[in-house]
């Protein structure tokens, strides 16, 4: 039922003037955010803690915490308005259509169950696979995320893997039910630089191979610049900059964006390796 509807839709996620309120104390946490994620596109959201980026993603996934609620605006996933989604509709959509990975992979996995079983569980619940089929598919997924020894990882526990490997396992679990949209919220922030690069490579590869639409959220403009076509910069709950990556980097409209760019130019690799100067007022 759901698949038929989305086959024609070219817009994966459409957010229009989304506003989110906190109830205790009463403040507006997200003030009118709008963006469009086309099918197969990559959108980057740059912002620091308090910018509202995580709340926006939570709203798109329907996982806003208790003291927080959407006060106005629309969120459409493949053309379907999620404002009045009930429990069952969210269950149908999560995993199958839209999925997410977050910052601390270890905390999203059960420390006392072997990793293979945890991915199996996703497959059996979401796709109704038998135990045998699930195991095969899990092994395929583990090698698709470039884990060197999928058979070994299948039997391992959380504490036996490094941060980078765990993040790959979480990505495998997230794409297991075959979603069309993947949100990566600070997914590489806690990882070493070389591992981060590998995970970003992986996300790009998955996008190309499986046709995923990606949302990459980070506080680091450079991370977003690496793999996203479009960039959204958020600050204090509002969008202060929005455009294609080249536009935003070459003609930033907002001071905050300019600050981020100049930081990289002054205190980053950009300072010494590139002849291409970015326009910073």
């Amino acid at each position, binding site marked *: 039922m759901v698949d038929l509807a989305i086959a024609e839709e070219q817009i994966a996620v459409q957010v229009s003037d989304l506003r989110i309120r*906190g109830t*205790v*104390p009463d403040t507006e*946490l997200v003030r009118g955010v709008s963006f469009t994620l086309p099918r197969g596109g990559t959108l980057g959201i740059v*912002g*620091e*803690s*308090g*910018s*509202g*980026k*995580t*709340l926006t993603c939570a709203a798109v996934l329907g996982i806003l*915490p208790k003291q*927080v609620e959407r006060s106005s605006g629309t969120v459409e996933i493949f053309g379907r308005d999620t404002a009045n989604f009930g429990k069952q509709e969210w269950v149908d959509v999560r995993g199958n259509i839209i999925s997410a990975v977050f910052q601390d992979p270890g905390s999203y996995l059960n420390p006392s169950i072997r990793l293979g079983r945890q991915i199996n569980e996703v497959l059996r619940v979401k796709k109704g696979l038998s135990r045998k089929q699930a195991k095969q598919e899990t092994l395929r997924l583990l090698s698709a995320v470039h884990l060197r020894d999928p058979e070994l990882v299948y039997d391992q526990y959380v504490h036996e893997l490094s941060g980078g490997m765990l993040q790959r396992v979480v990505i495998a679990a997230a794409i297991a039910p075959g979603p069309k949209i993947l949100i990566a919220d600070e997914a590489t922030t806690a990882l070493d630089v070389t591992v981060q690069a590998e995970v970003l490579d992986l996300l790009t590869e998955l996008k190309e191979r499986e046709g995923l639409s990606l949302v990459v959220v980070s506080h680091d403009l450079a991370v977003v610049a690496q793999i996203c076509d479009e960039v959204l910069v958020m600050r204090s709950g509002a969008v202060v900059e929005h455009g294609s990556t080249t536009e935003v980097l070459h003609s930033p409209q907002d001071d905050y964006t300019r600050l981020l760019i100049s930081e990289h130019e002054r205190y980053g690799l950009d300072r010494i390796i590139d002849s291409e100067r970015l326009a910073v007022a």
Partner: protein
Amino acid sequence: MLRNAVRVPSGRIAAVLLGIIFFLAVFGPLLAPYPANNTVAAQLEGPSGAHLLGTDYVGRDVLSRMLAGSTLSVLGALMVVVIAFVVGAIPGLLSVYLGRVFEWVSLRVVDTMIALPFLVFAVAMTALLGNGVVQSMFAVGILLSPVFFRVARSSALSVAQSQYVEAASLSGASTAWVMRKHFLAKVLPPISIALSTTMATGLVVIASLTFLGIGVQPPTATWGGILAADLQYIAIQPLAPLVPVVVILAAVLGCNLFADAVRDVSGEAGRQLLSARAARKAGQVTLISRALIGLRKGGELG
């Protein structure tokens, strides 16, 4: 910490209540208008000019008995507290600094004590030490010591492993300096809370034991004993049994309110509360509600 604790309403009430109780404990017997153990008037008289709280079933002045009994009741509770503190807090603190063997042994001893059923232990102690208030209080003190062990140990451990202590060491601080400047402020609140709640427990225990007639021979006045003796006459002279009840309640309430006050002014919530008060006094408008609810800074939903 004490200065801060009396700034909050619960602390002020606690200070008043505890002040009265300790005053009674120290000066009570001296202030009694009549000898506590002698019959001085008719039995079970109501309150009058001569006897403010009336007389009990033998004709003794209730007020005098209550005052006379204060010392024993409060002292007994204090004894519990002191024993629990010494037996618990000192090994607790040392278990962090004296090495693995001592740590292991002390932890296992405490685990065993916690596993023992309270009453069984009390009875066994009585069999061992004899039947008396002092012995019972001693046993109760030992039984309540694990709390102090845990509190002292966990405070010492968290401070010992903290970065600010490491920073002080990197500037050449001695252990004594770290104790004075960093450890004391951290351990004082939880220990004070443990002291006051244990005091409350001690008061109730000694009242219960004297109520049951254990350890103190009549006609010695104790709060529990007075209650026991006069309870059956409650319909005729309600003040006789109720007066000790009120005093015990007041004492226990004072202890618990003090613990609440300390809790309110300590830790993150405490610091916010105090800074909110200071800001209010200075005339600035702050989000008092935020401080009072105890919302942590940095708990933004970004």
